[in-house]
């Protein structure tokens, strides 16, 4: 019995939150890794792209709410999501036209592209602030729980509670659909295949008549979509704050590099490695410990690391990967 209670506690406080967070990180890391493999630079503006996309979704959600449109038990933001994706993708295409295109033409060094993305980051940051401000915003208006603590107790009779929030289920389901669609696109469609060819060998792809402008445009559209979805899911699950999204840049980069930058499967695996380590190391294990070893009365929280240091977890994993396996878990590309 105590063992089951311990398992329930671990599921409730570690496995469920880490899975949702991991799915959000994976979507973010997919965006970074796509830009990396097609345009060959680390996009520092990605966190702010997520913030911008989410900001647009929130505004449209408010619009829908004012018009009385709702999505039943699901959050209205999901209805607004396609519109948010369209706006963000348009902004990405515009940014590419105005900013990045020139540097591709002159074949600028990757580190110059990174610097350019810092400039874009400033502008996106300002746009998000103009659009929605800097305050924390909760925009989840759907049903809160799939299973709440009382239902769980009635169902199982266990005294350790388990709750499953609907945003966590929505996150995982949306992420699975998005990833499936992305892999289908990359694997089966002509455009997707030309993107992979372009990523593997740019010169050869150009020689075989692949239109680079089309590949780049599609990449930006997909990146805008992934960033908006990731940002909206994160915002629904936790809350929206522009600065938090900027800070997500570190775990997202870490996920992409841990998995092997440029490798989509790696980005997903990396997202879960980072999220499970982060949640596992910052969770206070006291409850689980008392279930497993009833005679032991720990005086602390049995927390390995304070939650204030959650970014240290991403960083440490990042450093370990850089030292021992710079290509990442799944072979990424190293330029």
């Amino acid at each position, binding site marked *: 019995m105590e063992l089951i209670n311990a398992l329930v506690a671990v599921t409730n406080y570690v496995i469920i939150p880490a899975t949702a967070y991991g799915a959000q990180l994976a979507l973010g890391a997919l965006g970074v890794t796509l830009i990396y493999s097609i345009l060959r*630079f*680390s996009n*520092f503006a990605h966190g702010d792209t997520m913030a911008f996309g989410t900001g647009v979704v929130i505004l449209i959600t408010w619009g829908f709410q004012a018009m009385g449109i709702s999505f039943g038990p699901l959050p209205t933001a999901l209805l607004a999501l396609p519109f948010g994706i369209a706006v963000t993708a348009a902004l990405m295409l515009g940014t590419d036209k105005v*900013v990045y295109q*020139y540097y591709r033409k*002159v074949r*600028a*060094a*990757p*580190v*110059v592209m*990174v*610097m*350019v993305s*810092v*400039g*874009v*980051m*400033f*502008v*996106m*940051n*300002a*746009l998000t*602030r*103009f659009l929605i*401000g*800097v305050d924390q915003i909760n925009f989840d208006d759907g049903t809160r729980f799939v299973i709440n603590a009382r239902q769980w107790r009635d169902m199982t009779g266990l005294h350790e509670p388990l709750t499953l929030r609907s945003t966590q289920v929505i996150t995982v389901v949306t992420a699975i659909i998005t990833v499936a669609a992305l892999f289908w696109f990359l694997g089966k469609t002509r455009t997707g295949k030309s993107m992979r060819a372009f990523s593997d060998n740019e010169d050869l792809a150009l020689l075989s008549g692949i239109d680079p402008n089309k590949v780049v445009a599609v990449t930006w559209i997909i990146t805008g979509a992934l960033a908006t979805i990731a940002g909206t899911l994160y915002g629904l699950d936790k809350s929206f704050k522009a600065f938090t999204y*900027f*800070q997500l*840049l*570190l775990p997202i*980069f*870490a996920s992409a*590099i841990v998995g092997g930058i440029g490798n989509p499967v790696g980005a997903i695996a990396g997202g879960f490695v980072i999220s499970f380590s982060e949640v596992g190391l910052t969770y206070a294990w006291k409850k689980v410990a008392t279930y497993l070893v009833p005679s032991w009365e720990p005086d*602390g929280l049995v927390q*390995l690391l*304070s939650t*204030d*240091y959650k*970014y*240290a977890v*991403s*960083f440490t994993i*990042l*450093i370990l990967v*850089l*030292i021992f396996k*710079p290509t990442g878990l799944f072979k990424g590309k*190293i*330029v």
Partner: protein
Amino acid sequence: MSSNRQAGETSSIRAPLFFAIMAALILLEGFTSGWNSALGILNMGLLSAIMALGVNMQWGYAGLFNAGAMGFLALGGLAPVLISMPPTSGAFSGGGPGIMAAFFVAIVAVLAAVWIWRNLRGKTRGLAVTAVLIVGFFTYRWLFDPAVEVIEAINPSAQGNLGGLGLPTLISWPVGAVLAAGAAWLVGKTALGLRSDYLAIATLGIAEIIVAILKNEQWLDRGVLNVNGIPRPWPVPYEIDLQNSPDFVAQMQAWGLDPQLGSTIAVKLAFLVLFVIVILALIWLTEMSLKSPWGRMMRAIRDNEISAAAMGKNVTRRHLQIFVLGSAVIGLAGAMMISLDGQMTPTSYNPLRYTFLILVMVIVGGSGNNWGSILGGVLIWYVWVKAGDWGPDIMGALAAPFPDGGLKDHLIQSAPHMRMLVMGIILLMVLRFSPRGLLPEK
């Protein structure tokens, strides 16, 4: 990068002209908004210029992208707290041994793990390393936690931290540089020699962590409770002492100045003199080193790593060297900034302001040119401050035709964010149309 580094013909009056414009802007500020404001902008601008000098060594001399200047700056700022604050009585005797022992255990555990990794082979290696690290971690926490409790219990409303050594503030400046250099060595050792943007990502991470440590480790710097009353460096007086000194008041009255205003200006001027001395010394050192064979080697590595490596230069070692030196300069600026402010507020470290704005300064001033960094530092700081002031006015004028209500209020409220937009556009414009900056490298 090499494509935009060709030495071009630049007019010899270019640099004096830009510096004259900068001086004119500061003078204008003095005549319109008062000398306190003008000297305030100039002092902070010069501090930013020192940070920019450090970042310029990394980006301009070596093409290394440091996305964590904020971290090295914050770490440098720890030095005045630990060196020049008066000691907390009882803290060092109570918690000092525990903390020292904990750090000793941590270092021994890491060294042991490294030694095992290098000397063992096979399956036992991974297990042994993990075991050593786990045992080390728990021993560390077992020693560390009670010591921290003892320190944080001492007079928590005003102290509750380790306190300083009570040494003169000027000593803390080089110590700040050493602290930042140490952190930079650790990061550079792991991230250099890999892809160029891995360093950027690693430094982004270390900066977040350093600031998180400063925010949370109360025993060290009181965390979010801030440390106030950090002593000023040696020749800089306190306003209140000046106002109480009959000689100073008489002198001010002889010049027809209000003694109170005079005292604040005198303090700012004293800081200004100190900062100018540091900047001139740094410029002299950096210019000399750039002219030396070492400087030529650095430029050769930056412009073509492969041929420099073929000439027998150890590119990674040189990159590590310049990265550590640049970070030390940033740390120095961090310590100076804390002694200018007189307080340590870890929550005020914001990556946009202290990392990315500094990059804008370097690039706008002219990557690779030290004088350009000085110009960029002061000029961009001026624009940053002024964009915050002008933003609401401009926005008010733009929003005037709209009817009163939600949209207009929203536009006017969002005006302070104008500075982000301005900085982004300036950076993008310079990178696109004038990648060598205002004062191109010779």
